[in-house]
């Protein structure tokens, strides 16, 4: 039995918490139950023999949610029901959301708990996890085993309507020759740090990566790694320290999520001992909104992206954390009625900043979609031109000393 509030022993791939309370919230489900869980108890039961056994997580009645979900536990070679205090787990770790890869030390034994709702069933061992920072730079060889160059980036297409997101192509940089953009299906094998192609690479030569990318395709190193992201479930800005992928049974690479903790940074710096002691923290891919120029644009254009599944409160959190132009684009992508709801639950300063940045007609449409009293208020407010034009100074809400959570949002 895990004592309440026991300290996490998070490994490099492990999220810092077992806040399973949010489990089940896929993309767009918004904040999980953790925020309002208070001192609720999460009970993990049903662990049986064998790695990857399914167990059930039940959130105590105190949350009023009664959530039940499946998780994977590893190793699970003996019966280990786990009991976690939601409040303590939340306060000491990543808060309101869960991620896929979680580990706790129970009676001296490391446990890895995988949330089955977001993690492919294939990930049951650390060996199944691949990190982008380790994949890039590896040698790429042709069918004749001659070295072609090195792998510098991977692409994923965000266009798929459902199912997991897979790596589509890899960018290979060659000395003194044009880059290659090779479909992953042309890879014969990937082992021992060497990627071997099954096909002649000449067919994959590109002139420029910008022209070669599909409209819904992004580069993981360029557009995701080390970039700032909004963790939608965790309601925070973060920076991607590594991208987590996994092998699938059919030999493809599947995108799982992003490590955002400092532990991953330390690991990439080669400070492995310090990294092992640092708090690990990761976010599921479905809970991320990218802020890189291309990442933001592609996600906004992709119906499946998390941004399109958020309710008004989730959108309010998102726009409060994005820069003004990105926030404006998010609001402009919504129907006026939805945008009006977002404005209603947003902090007035944030809402004013975004509305003022929008074209007059778009802002007028949103205001027109509000209830009459709100609309009148906003027309009056926007008619004035205050010296600071609705700008909140310091996005981190440092000034003044008060919180700016959306009205009614869980914190």
């Amino acid at each position, binding site marked *: 039995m895990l004592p309440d509030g026991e300290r996490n022993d998070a490994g490099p791939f492990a999220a810092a918490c077992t806040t399973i309370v949010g489990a089940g919230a896929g993309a767009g489900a918004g904040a999980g139950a953790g925020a309002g869980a208070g001192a609720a108890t999460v009970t993990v039961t049903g662990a049986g023999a064998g790695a990857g056994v399914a167990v059930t997580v039940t959130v105590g009645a105190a949350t009023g949610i009664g959530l039940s979900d499946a998780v994977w536990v590893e190793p699970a070679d003996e019966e280990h029901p786990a009991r976690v205090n939601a409040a303590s787990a939340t*306060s000491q770790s990543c808060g309101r959301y869960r991620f896929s890869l979680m580990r706790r030390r129970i009676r001296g034994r490391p446990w890895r708990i995988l949330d089955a709702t977001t993690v492919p069933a294939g990930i049951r061992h650390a060996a199944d996890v691949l990190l982008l920072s380790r994949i890039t730079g590896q040698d790429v060889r042709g069918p004749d085993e001659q070295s072609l160059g090195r792998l510098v980036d991977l692409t994923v297409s965000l266009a798929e309507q459902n199912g997991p997101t897979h790596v589509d192509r890899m960018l290979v940089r060659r000395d003194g020759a044009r880059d290659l953009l090779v479909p992953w299906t042309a890879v014969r094998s990937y082992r021992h740090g060497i990627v071997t192609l099954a096909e002649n690479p000449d067919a994959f030569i590109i002139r420029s990566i910008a022209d070669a990318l599909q409209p819904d395709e992004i580069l993981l190193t*360029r*557009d995701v790694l*080390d*970039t*700032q992201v909004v963790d939608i479930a965790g309601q*925070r*800005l*973060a*920076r*991607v*320290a590594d991208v987590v992928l996994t092998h699938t049974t059919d030999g493809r690479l599947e995108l799982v999520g992003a490590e*955002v*903790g*400092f532990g991953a*940074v330390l690991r*990439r*710096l080669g400070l492995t001992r310090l990294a092992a002691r640092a708090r690990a923290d990761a976010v599921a891919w479905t809970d991320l909104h990218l*802020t*890189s*120029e*291309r990442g933001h644009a592609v996600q906004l254009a992709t119906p499946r992206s998390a941004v399109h599944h958020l309710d008004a409160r989730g959108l309010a959190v998102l726009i409060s954390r*994005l*820069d*003004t*132009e*990105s926030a404006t684009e998010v609001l402009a992508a919504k129907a006026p009625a939805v945008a009006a709801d977002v404005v209603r639950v947003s902090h007035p300063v944030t809402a004013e*900043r975004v509305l*003022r*940045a929008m074209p*007059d007609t778009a*802002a*007028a449409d949103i205001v027109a979609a509000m209830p009459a009293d709100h609309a009148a208020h906003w*027309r009056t407010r*926007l*008619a004035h*031109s*205050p*010296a*600071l*034009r609705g*700008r*909140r*100074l*310091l*996005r*981190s*809400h*440092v*000034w*003044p*000393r*008060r*919180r700016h959570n959306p009205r009614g949002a869980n914190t």
Partner: protein
Amino acid sequence: MRRTGLTIGALLAVVGPGLLAGLSDDDPAGITTYSVLGADHGYRLLWVLLLSTIALVLFHGLAARMGVVTGQGLIGLVRQRYGVRLGGAVLATLVVANVGTTCAEFAGVAAGFEIFGITRYVSVPAAAAVVSLLVLRGSFHRVEHLLLLLSTVFLAYVASGFLAHPDWGAAAEGLFVPTMPLDTDTIAIVTATVGTTLAPWGLSFIQSYAVDKKLRTEDLALERIDVVTGAVLTGVIGFFVVVACAATLHRDGRSIADAADAAVALQPLAGDAASTLFAVGLIGAALLAASLLPLSTAYSVCEYVGVEAALDDPYDEAKTFYLSFGLVTVLAAGVVLIPNVPLVTILVATQVLNAVLLIPLLLAMIGIGRDEDLMGRFAVGRSGTAVYGLTAATVVLCVVALGLTSLVA
């Protein structure tokens, strides 16, 4: 529904980053450098200040543009563009340099108050407490206005310059006709002038501040005015400090070690008023920079680590920010209070570190500014790259020349 265009209100909304970042470069270390420049070399190296001001306009403008376009601070962008290793190296150097520079600010507070007979064991802890409370607890609108108000103490240097009755003709000649003896001391003061005017922490601060102010690309034209105003005021204040010292100390063949010396030395030469104004300016400049440096450092650390700098969160949720801010403030104030601590050595080492750090930082900025993936249509073009490259090359030349002459010496 909205008013747009170049209105006073719009300008007021934008003003701040450039003005504060520029003026805070006139910190005690800067004032000391300018004082030594004037006392030892008279008017003839004023052209260095002019070139430094132009470099300041260019790179502060680039930093502000990068912040506005990408929505990220400088250290975060360096990590994104160049990876965790280079980003980490730049951050580590920046933190060390910033702690050293904060020491210089508190040393400035101590020296300024000691002119009025107040011991540093009172003034420094009090200043540390005041700037911490100001920054950690105040409303930003009020803090910004207060800092801008504090900046008006720099006018003291302008008054001080006029009271010293300088030779305006010689000053104009020194400003526009470059001459320079190629000896170690001269190269050192020229490098120090460039390094103190275009400080690494100022670059990271202006970018973080432009991000935090939520400026938009349509504000860039107004932000340019802000940057130019701040940089020109920085140069003008530096000019008057040099002129005041050149007209008095240099004329009488007196040399000084720091800005407080200059204030004291001015007394018999230019009168009580000039000396007092100089000391008041020193204290105000020190307080302004001491307010901004720990904040800038904390933001840089948080940008690199990848956590939000959320001071309104409890300590448990914003440890990185609190610890960074607190450590820089306490460490710097503590060092100044250590009896017989070699402050001059620390300050000189900090200046050198700042100058050395400036090189990779400027190159990184040019690289990021040119990156169309990050900057889109606001990416720096070929002509811009040439201008920025020439400026960076001049800084590199100064640092290399200083290194070589130091080795030879």
